[in-house]
């Protein structure tokens, strides 16, 4: 056991903290939300300059060779700042799929472009009827003219509206719920027959509905029909990244609420002098620390070689930090009172980020049921 960060990791965390503190205040963020894409191209460029966009990629691909703990450190800062950029979609999910399943040529073509800030990906996997079942893929891929033709629809594709390329899952064979028979395809966002409708999620991050009608996919990642393992790993890495983001968001909600309870006076004294408020804040602190432990578990399980063990740890972590984030965010609004309910005040934005995280890649009920099926 070892909880120390390396010097490089400390340096990384410090530089991201500084960048976000300087450039990503809540007021600045309001401006970023209003951009056409719903996020800041300028910040994206700065992430590239700092090496964040290639963080988990190999050095030969213009990356940093970082591991899940490095990603955790960055995501924690993004959670504090409520960063809007498609980092999860591009670097962790889309880039992760290419890194895990792409050929040498595909990696060499795509990963450096991501690292430089010139290419954005999205992971177009989930479908409207699949809920959280990763194997439930109805989009089809059929061989044609030496390539593949995709038909179907993808739902709530994170940052699918601004991606240059999509990593699309589609069934090459098998029944609707069969883990076997799914492929992952690289599709240009501008491909003929691909239509996308972008929208904001509750937390002001962007997503898209994507329909595919006779879309020719130029490339497939890995073997046709054998992508389920990659999909699971990509989602696991996404959960771990969001766990760190949730911790950053919880920390901010906790400290905002603490500060508010010190300064907000009622009945002639700060509300934080009331024991009932103090105990609630202590409970928030306990939830935050338990949630932090679970986010660490997720990060440190991403590279666990045993797939069953890894899936189990990630599900436990998702439940743990999801419940913690729900508790902390609900209490944060409650202790703020009316002001916490307003759109102009930051706490409600963190609340909604936590909500979106909890409902991405399997909510608490889903992961509880998944683990419950394995009780021996």
């Amino acid at each position, binding site marked *: *056991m*070892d*909880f*120390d*960060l390396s010097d490089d*990791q400390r340096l990384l965390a410090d530089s991201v903290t500084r960048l976000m503190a300087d450039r990503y205040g809540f007021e600045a963020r309001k401006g970023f939300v209003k951009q056409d894409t719903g996020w800041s191209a300028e910040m994206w460029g700065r992430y590239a300059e700092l090496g964040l966009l290639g963080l988990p990629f190999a050095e030969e691909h213009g990356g940093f060779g970082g591991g899940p*703990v490095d990603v955790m450190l960055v995501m924690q800062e993004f959670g504090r700042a409520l960063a809007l950029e498609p980092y999860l979609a591009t670097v962790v999910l889309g880039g992760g799929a290419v890194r895990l399943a792409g050929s040498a040529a595909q990696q060499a073509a795509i990963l450096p472009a991501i690292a430089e800030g010139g290419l954005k990906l999205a992971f177009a996997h989930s479908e409207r009827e699949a809920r959280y079942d990763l194997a439930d893929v109805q989009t089809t891929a059929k061989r044609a003219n030496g390539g593949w033709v995709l038909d179907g629809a993808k739902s709530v594709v994170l940052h699918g509206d601004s991606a240059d390329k999509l990593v699309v899952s589609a069934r090459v064979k098998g029944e609707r719920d069969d883990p076997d028979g799914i492929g992952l395809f690289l599709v240009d966002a501008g491909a003929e027959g691909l239509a996308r409708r972008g929208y904001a999620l509750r937390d002001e991050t962007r997503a898209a509905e994507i329909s595919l009608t006779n879309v020719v996919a130029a490339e497939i990642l890995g073997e046709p029909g054998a992508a389920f393992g990659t999909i699971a790993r990509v989602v696991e890495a996404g959960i771990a990244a969001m766990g760190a983001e949730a911790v950053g968001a919880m920390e901010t909600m906790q400290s905002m609420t*603490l500060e508010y*309870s*010190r300064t907000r006076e009622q009945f002639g004294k700060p509300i*934080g*002098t009331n*024991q009932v408020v*103090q*105990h609630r*804040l*202590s*409970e928030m*602190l*306990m939830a935050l*620390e*338990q*949630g*932090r*432990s*679970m986010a*660490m*578990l997720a990060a*440190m399980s991403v590279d666990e070689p045993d797939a069953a063990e890894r899936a189990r740890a990630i599900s*436990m972590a998702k*439940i*743990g930090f999801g419940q913690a984030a729900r508790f902390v965010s609900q209490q944060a609004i409650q202790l703020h009172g009316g002001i916490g309910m307003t759109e102009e005040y930051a706490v409600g934005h963190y609340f909604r980020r936590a909500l979106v995280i909890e409902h991405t890649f399997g909510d608490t009920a889903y992961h*509880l*049921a998944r*683990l*419950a*099926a394995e*009780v*021996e």
Partner: protein
Amino acid sequence: MDLRLTPEERAFRDEVRAFIRDNLPTDTRERMRLGYSPRKQDTVAWQRILNKKGWAAISWPKEWGGPGWSAVQRMIFIEENQAAPAPELLSFNITMIGPVLIQFGTEAQKSRFLPRAANLDDWWCQGFSEPGAGSDLAALKTAAKREGDHYIVNGSKIWTSTAHNADWCFVLVRTNPNAAKRQEGISFLLVDMKTPGITVRPIVSIDGAHHLNEVFFDDVKVPVEMRVYEENRGWDVAKFLLGNERTGIARLGKSRERVAAAKEAARSVRFNGRPLIEDAAFRQRVVQLEVDMKALQITQYRVVSAGAKKSDGRPDPLSSVLKVKGTELLQATTELAMDTAGPLAMPIWAQELAEMANEPDMLAEAAEQATGNYLFLRAASIYGGTNEIQKNILSKAVLRL
């Protein structure tokens, strides 16, 4: 950063596990598997086996018989020992009076008491709480008046766990009723339970068992050399004691053992025509507890590993998180074990059934003990600083409110 045990730590865990497996007396293990609290003789016998191995005084320096373990090793040992399940080291001896004497005791006190405490030749109990001084410990009134080379102690203590087993008691007494601050008039005395004037009255708790006592002091003569540290500075000793070594406070091994017991029972009872273990709601409850135990285990690693790097020797206020969450889990896991018993959670009849059938009814016994555990562990959020006090500590020490 790495959450997994290192190969050395894993090897240590396996060594502990194997030693417990090979040396824990079978009848003790079997009784505890059924959920019984260890009897006095079980605890004594096991601590002596551990002491012979050098594993009893786990947090003491080597010169007083400690094994020289790291905080992580202590945590691993405690958890394995609880999960075995084996009798826990007597905390009054090992985590309370031992470290106190090592820090504050005279050479004579150390050499007289420490080896006997490690080997459980003396069973210690804690005379802190009083009828008027619970969470507000400094309100204590039991008085010690100096007369020559003795103190004369009068007053009473309450909730004194295992006083009926004890040979010695460490007692907080008021030596200066006129001190400017309440905390400044308190002294810390070591009292032989055989001293004339001491009366121990049992308090039967809601589980029907006798763990707790009232202890009355009626002109009890205590030699001055039995005072630890300076007169009227006993509060410093008490604070040290309460903050010292909170590694085992989460009692995760015990919670783990209770979940295992509930799962074991759930395999043999039927619910809606199938084994209870197959019921979705039961399984989700188990998973939720496992998730919470996992989170606490990692939080405990973090607190322990941060504590090992601190040099000021002060307890980490975050150990209050371990106390609150650990006792909540202890309560939730014992609740699960009780609920698993279904209607068998109610009767107190195991002994009668055994007498009637002339053989023990293990299911009835385990069910009866599951409820007993549940009932007694309602105390877990009260003892050792109530969970409300822990939240006060967090509010002040961490949140600075």
